[in-house]
């Protein structure tokens, strides 16, 4: 009823006003709507989710360490967001196409990225490593919000091709302020495109609390665009999986776009260059530490007697292997040759750049001799 006055009071934003299947103590909460979407998740599957999160956390820790050791120029940690990333990403089919932003370590992990993919860009060796078509995942986007439109365009293409794939875009709470993200909702809604928007509301955009972007629940914005949405506990991997399965299913069935707001927390700094003590309370961080996405799955599994020492050891070993692999991919990186800066600017011959490249090649050739002479 848009023709009666809507309330003028600001809706309160409560981080606990979320769909949830596991509480902080790891107790399973029934949810009539979401339960069907995770009916198949047995202990084995749950352990799989736990393992994913543990490995992602390890990759993240390794990334931070490598940056501290001067091996990476930068790292954008995802600690605290493992459930959001793993839970949502596990809802895709491999032939769905995902447009992540820079912090989606867990999404890329689930999509099939290999160790070097996590570090070489932050090391400054390449803007991207994997071929997007190999893992049906675009290279992580740095321009805030831009990828949301790419996902919509890709989804329009799916529609035209008549397949039942879906596309998805990941972005942050800060990103919701960008025109692009809103235009993406307009386009998705108008074309009923099979796209899912995943907003990782980790409470912060660098130093700005989410209230600078939105004095209202972000998930409440999508319905205004005609897009159904769901606000989910982003530290509850089961709820994230269920919500995302609902959303993906919705899009896959031809019902158009869907929107997920995963309410979580960025435990670390924005990037390794950031100093969060300048702008946020230790208390807040501590409060969220008690909501750790891994511990609550562990608690559930333990309560079910499904968290064996064997499993624990295996996960630790796998994590160590991943950590080691990431590290060695980083340390063994080969820096490309100077002349390769000219590669792939264009797909076809380019008279201007080809000449410039030749000129630079001549410069590089002469350089050694000249250098010696000086």
């Amino acid at each position: 009823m848009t023709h009666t006055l809507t309330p003028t009071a600001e809706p309160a934003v409560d981080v606990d006003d979320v769909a949830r299947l596991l509480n902080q103590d790891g107790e399973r909460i029934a949810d009539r709507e979401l339960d069907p979407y995770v009916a198949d998740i047995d202990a084995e599957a749950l352990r799989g989710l736990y393992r994913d999160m543990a490995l992602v956390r390890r990759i993240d820790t390794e990334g931070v360490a490598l940056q501290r050791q001067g091996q990476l120029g930068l790292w954008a940690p995802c600690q605290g967001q493992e459930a959001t990333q793993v839970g949502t990403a596990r809802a895709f089919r491999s032939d769905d196409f995902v447009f992540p932003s820079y912090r989606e370590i867990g999404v890329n992990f689930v999509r099939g990225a290999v160790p070097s993919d996590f570090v070489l860009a932050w090391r400054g060796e390449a803007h991207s490593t994997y071929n997007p078509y190999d893992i049906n995942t675009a290279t992580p986007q740095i321009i805030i919000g831009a990828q949301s439109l790419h996902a919509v365009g890709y989804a329009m293409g799916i529609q035209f091709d008549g397949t039942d794939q879906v596309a998805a875009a990941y972005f942050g709470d800060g990103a919701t302020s960008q025109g692009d993200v809103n235009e993406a909702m307009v386009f998705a809604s108008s074309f009923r495109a099979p796209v899912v928007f995943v907003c990782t509301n980790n409470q912060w955009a660098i130093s700005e609390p989410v209230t600078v972007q939105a004095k209202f629940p972000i998930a409440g914005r999508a319905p205004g665009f005609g897009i159904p949405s769901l606000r989910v506990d982003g530290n509850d991997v089961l709820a994230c999986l269920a919500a995302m399965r609902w959303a993906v299913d919705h899009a896959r069935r031809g019902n158009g776009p869907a929107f997920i707001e995963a309410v979580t927390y960025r435990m670390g700094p924005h990037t390794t260059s950031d100093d969060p003590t300048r702008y946020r309370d230790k208390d807040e961080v501590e409060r969220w530490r008690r909501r750790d996405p891994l511990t609550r799955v562990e608690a559930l599994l333990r309560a079910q007697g499904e968290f064996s020492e064997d499993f624990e050891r295996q996960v630790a070993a796998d994590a160590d292997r991943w950590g080691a692999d990431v590290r060695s991919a980083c340390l063994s990186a080969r820096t490309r040759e100077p002349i390769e800066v000219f590669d792939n600017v264009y797909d076809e011959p380019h008279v201007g750049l080809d000449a410039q490249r030749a000129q630079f090649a001549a410069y590089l050739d002469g350089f050694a001799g000249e250098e010696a002479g000086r």
Partner: protein
Amino acid sequence: MTQLTMAKSINEGLRRAMADDPKVLVMGEDIGKLGGVFRVTDGLLDQFGAQRVIDTPLAESGIMGAAVGLAFRGYRPVVEIQFDGFVYPAFDQIVCQVAKLHYRTRGNVKMPITIRIPWAGGVGAAEHHSESPEAYFVHTSGLRVVAVSNPQDAYVMLRQAIASNDPVVYFEPKRLYHQKGEVDLDVDLADAPPMGLARVAREGSDVTLLTYGAQVSTAMDAATAAEDDGISIEVIDLRSISPVDYRTVAASVRKTGRVVVTHEAAREAGVGAELVASVTEQCFNYLEAPPVRVTGHDIPYPPAKLEKHHLPDLDRILDAVDRVLDRPNSQTGREEWGSLESGRGAAVGGSRA
């Protein structure tokens, strides 16, 4: 061969590109039922349907971003920006995504997007409807930029732009839309001159006149007028303004030794600056006089009734021709940047602190 307006030849280019390749689609504002505000997409909706002729919501960044996603999916989107002055909301997607994704993904993701822009002034339009933003795109590495001057080129170069795996910004001079010319729609596209090649529109020996788009006809008129004064002007239609075919340009300059460049866009850091700088670098020893630029002033596009004083017309071109030939001209006896020599303090601005 048939007589077609430029609008119609572009329309045919789109139609045939779409018929030949199911991955080609067109998208933009009002391009469906209306056939575009210039009727360039007329009839395409009927022929190809709403999935290939897409009326989009009114948001240029959205259009461009969606086109990027479609390119990711293997489509070859041809995007229409309704008017030159409305491309700026899409600038971020063009500069950071369209131009860079191929580089970013080390060649794995192609961006075969053609951005059609009805372009430039001289049509008495309202603000924002007569702009010449081409230099922004020329300065953006990763894009190709072409500007057409006649119906035949419009047809062929559009086909080539759409066929290119690289993103191409394709400028269509609005004031030529309704001008007719001979068009061979059955030309063998593989045999036609590639869009990267410049064309000597008129041969001459005294002065090389470099231009593109609608200014080509003004330049041709100037060359005809100059002939009466015994001045032989070689007019080069650059066609591609990024990259520029300097082989053709240099051959001409080495012959004439004198260069005039003309375009509608503002002068400062415009395409003309690049042309003068490159020609000077490459042909310095052949130059008999400093190249002169005849361009729009460094002002926002003025109101329609004043645009004729902004646009470089035949007389301003001829005045510049006189300058490079050291004949009497409007600036004779004036010191270059004369005003610079006086009033150091006041004239430089920004000193009110």
